[in-house]
């Protein structure tokens, strides 16, 4: 006979406001199989947990139902408490009367009735729970870090310094990410490359870090502690082990007018190229899309149309026939740090975004985005640090900076704040004024959001010391008018229209997740929000974990982040990985399928539907060793517990522990108690 204890939590006012918790406890007292029911203000607090433990002892409980929040919130907490009281922890379940009841209903009567129903269904389930033992799984103490920007580099270094091997992969030819493109960084105005490049070299030379550049994640199998990741190493054409980075191949390449990604389109590069002089590794890649030889091959020319780089390479490092390679890495944890991209100001927009017709779809050459301004201001940029406008190379005397282009604008598809633009606009205005003393910097803003150490002081300095003019209001139209760029705006403080004849306009476009992040998220089984940013497991308490155990997140792939935030997240993710690696074995929930060999008819339909290949056929032998039949067998190490096999079993012989037919039917039956 079951002796279930029901513990109804008020969650302060969160549940108590709409659900009569005492009435729930009272109703459950009379439910068959319930030996004890009580309510308490904060069940998850220490006294609350003590209550549960005490009741287990006093009433000799065989099961516990905590009617409180979602199991995703506190199931672990209460299972731990139950375990401490000596009851098998899998005999404890949560009845979700907060997220699924008190928070979504207003009528106290209705909410209370529903809460009673929810608690009853879970009581019926728990009556059919069986004590289970956790499964121990080994941990591979190697980590994979996806993305070689500042977040990925930091996470990789922290884990590697902790004594564990790290596989760092980057889809571009060099690590460094967006930070390597920046001129100077707020709020200190120190040079971005000067603080970043030593880190890049350190990561490259670290004995515990294995770097794959020009590579992407192809496939991810396995689970926490035991992932198997297939990496596509895109054909680089240049042998990374032979090349010494002399650059002779770059000098002879005839395709010299390809817009450079690193220069944000403001500079040109060759088809065989190193993204930037400080690249790590400093080994070129051949861009096959734009290479004369490969263009010829695609057209089906009998003879190769070029081949100059191969001729020029004295080391013989270039091989045009290399193909994408696949390598498999076994790791125990994964850190996702794929970063961001900017809202494209051009006409071509991904699905769901409108672009900026009112700002000329970026077709006015002197209307640029924030990253392009970084390259103009950078000493290593296309203008060697001189602020010269793209159309005619003249020094602009009036520059307009527009905040919130895309951000905080639901109409453009993004209602969120991109967080870094207020700061980098202030920085841009300062850098501009430092270089063009007689220039005029005008910024149109919605609000100044400069929350951060030294941030507000910095943005005030742009106005008070460097004389940037800040106008509170939006820009309605930007268009070319002869030699100038006309900016029509509105000053909401004076209530007047503003028209500025600018020489150049810088748009602070919204931060968006990097291309391909949704596909990557699918491979990793992590979820993304509606914009494609990766969801953290809990916005406050588990900010660098994802809903897939063993997969962590760092930097701007989770939300817009500035450098200090990205680095802090990366170190946090690194600490989480090191914590995971501090143990030799992990405990896993015993939510795996088990076959009843006595009734299994060996039809193997379960094997067909299992997405993990966890089911195999096992022979049954007679006493004298003759094979007399076969049954299915589930490998508990591979089974992930989806239960698809159970639903297709013809003879009811396979069941998923924790979600057995008995348990589910009991829940359904319990609902016939609806009043």
């Amino acid at each position, binding site marked *: 006979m079951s002796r279930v204890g029901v513990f109804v939590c008020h969650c302060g006012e969160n549940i108590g406001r709409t659900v009569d918790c005492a009435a729930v406890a009272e109703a459950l007292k009379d439910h*068959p199989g319930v030996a004890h029911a009580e309510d308490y203000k904060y069940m998850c607090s220490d006294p609350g947990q003590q209550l549960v433990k005490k009741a287990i002892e006093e009433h000799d409980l065989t099961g516990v139902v905590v009617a409180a929040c*979602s*199991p*995703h919130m506190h199931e672990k907490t209460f299972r731990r408490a139950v375990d401490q009281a000596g009851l098998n922890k899998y005999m404890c379940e949560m009845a*979700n009367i*907060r*997220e*699924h*009841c008190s*928070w*979504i*209903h*207003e*009528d106290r009567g*209705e*909410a209370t*009735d*529903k809460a009673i*129903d*929810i608690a009853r*269904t879970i009581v*019926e389930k728990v*009556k*059919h729970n069986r004590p289970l033992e956790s499964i121990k799984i080994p941990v591979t103490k190697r980590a994979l870090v996806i993305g070689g920007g500042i977040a990925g580099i930091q996470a990789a270094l922290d884990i590697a310094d902790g004594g564990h091997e790290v596989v760092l992969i980057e889809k571009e030819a060099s690590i460094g990410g967006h930070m390597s493109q920046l001129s100077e960084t707020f709020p200190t105005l120190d040079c971005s490359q000067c603080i970043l490049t030593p880190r890049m070299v350190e990561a490259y030379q670290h004995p515990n870090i294995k770097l794959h550049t020009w590579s992407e994640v192809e496939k991810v199998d396995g689970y926490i502690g035991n992932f198997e990741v297939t990496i596509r190493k895109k054909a680089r054409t240049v042998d990374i082990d032979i090349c010494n980075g002399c650059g002779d191949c770059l000098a002879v390449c005839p395709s010299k007018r390809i817009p450079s990604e690193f220069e944000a389109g403001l500079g040109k590069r060759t088809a065989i190229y190193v993204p930037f002089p400080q690249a790590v590794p400093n080994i070129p890649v051949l861009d096959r899309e734009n290479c004369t030889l490969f263009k010829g091959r695609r057209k089906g020319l009998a003879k190769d149309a070029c081949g100059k780089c191969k001729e020029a390479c004295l080391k013989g490092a270039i091989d045009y026939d290399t193909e994408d390679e696949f390598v498999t890495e076994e790791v125990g944890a994964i850190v996702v740090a794929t970063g961001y991209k900017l809202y494209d100001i051009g006409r071509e927009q991904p699905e769901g975004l409108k672009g900026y017709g009112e700002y000329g779809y970026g077709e006015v050459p002197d209307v640029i985005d924030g990253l392009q301004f970084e390259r103009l201001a950078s000493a290593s940029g296309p203008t060697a640090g001189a602020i010269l406008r793209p159309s005619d190379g003249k020094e602009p005397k009036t520059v307009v900076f527009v905040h919130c282009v895309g951000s905080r604008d639901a109409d453009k598809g993004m209602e969120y704040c991109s967080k870094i633009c207020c700061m980098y606009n202030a920085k841009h205005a300062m850098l501009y004024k430092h270089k063009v003393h007689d220039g005029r910097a005008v910024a149109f803003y919605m609000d100044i959001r400069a929350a951060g150490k030294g941030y507000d002081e910095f943005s005030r300095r742009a106005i008070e010391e460097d004389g940037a003019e800040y106008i509170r209001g939006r820009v309605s139209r930007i268009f070319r008018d002869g030699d100038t760029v006309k900016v029509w705006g509105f000053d909401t403080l004076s209530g007047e229209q503003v028209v500025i004849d600018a020489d150049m306009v810088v748009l602070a476009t919204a931060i968006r997740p990097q291309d391909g992040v949704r596909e990557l998220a*699918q491979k990793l*089984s992590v*979820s*993304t*929000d*509606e914009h494609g940013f990766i*969801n953290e497991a809990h916005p406050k308490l588990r900010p660098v974990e994802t*809903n*897939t155990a063993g997969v962590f997140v760092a930097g701007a792939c989770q939300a817009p982040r500035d450098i200090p935030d990205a680095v802090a997240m990366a170190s946090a993710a690194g600490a989480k990985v090191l914590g995971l690696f501090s143990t030799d074995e992990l405990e896993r929930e015993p*939510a795996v399928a088990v076959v009843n060999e006595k009734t299994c008819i060996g039809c193997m339909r379960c094997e067909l*539907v299992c*997405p*993990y290949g966890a089911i195999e056929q096992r022979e049954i032998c007679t006493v004298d060793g003759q094979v007399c039949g076969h049954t299915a067998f589930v490998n508990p190490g591979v089974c*992930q*517990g*989806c*239960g*698809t096999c*159970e*639903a297709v079993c013809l003879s*009811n012989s396979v069941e998923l522990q*924790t*979600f057995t*037919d*008995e348990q*589910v*039917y*009991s829940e*359904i*039956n*319990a*609902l*016939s*108690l*609806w*009043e």
Partner: protein
Amino acid sequence: MTETHDDFEPRITAFVCNWCTYTGADLAGTSRLHMASNVRIIRLPCTGRMDPLFFLKAFERGADGIIVSGCHPADCHYTSGNYHARRRFAVFHDLMEFIGVDPRRMTFSWVSASEGAKWRDVVDEAVANVRALGPFDAYRALTPESGETAAARETTPAGVDGDAP
């Protein structure tokens, strides 16, 4: 014949997966999105675990409608459980329609972990549909247990032990 069932409070049993829809419903709660209180959720690890016999049992036990919801195509936590669910539901749905059950009693949807608002809409729409259709007594009249159902509501759930479908 048009009957109105404005006073009727339908009972709907929802079978949802743990990773997407259950979490999406959690998000609806966290976002304080108010919705009809007629739905009772049964959590499954994956919609692939779902057996059409669950729905029949729910109808038999007094549900006036059902909802099935899992991860969007290609988003399944277990790779492909939602596709199995979709096929099973399609066949079940046609069968029920064939025997004369109004398909509006059966809602199938994809609700991801970030779609709290969509979950609210699914719930409200299902409740409105089933309310318009009225109680599902016709189905219960078919089953021998129907006589017991009313009695079972008052006392213990009958035959919960290993109640084979």
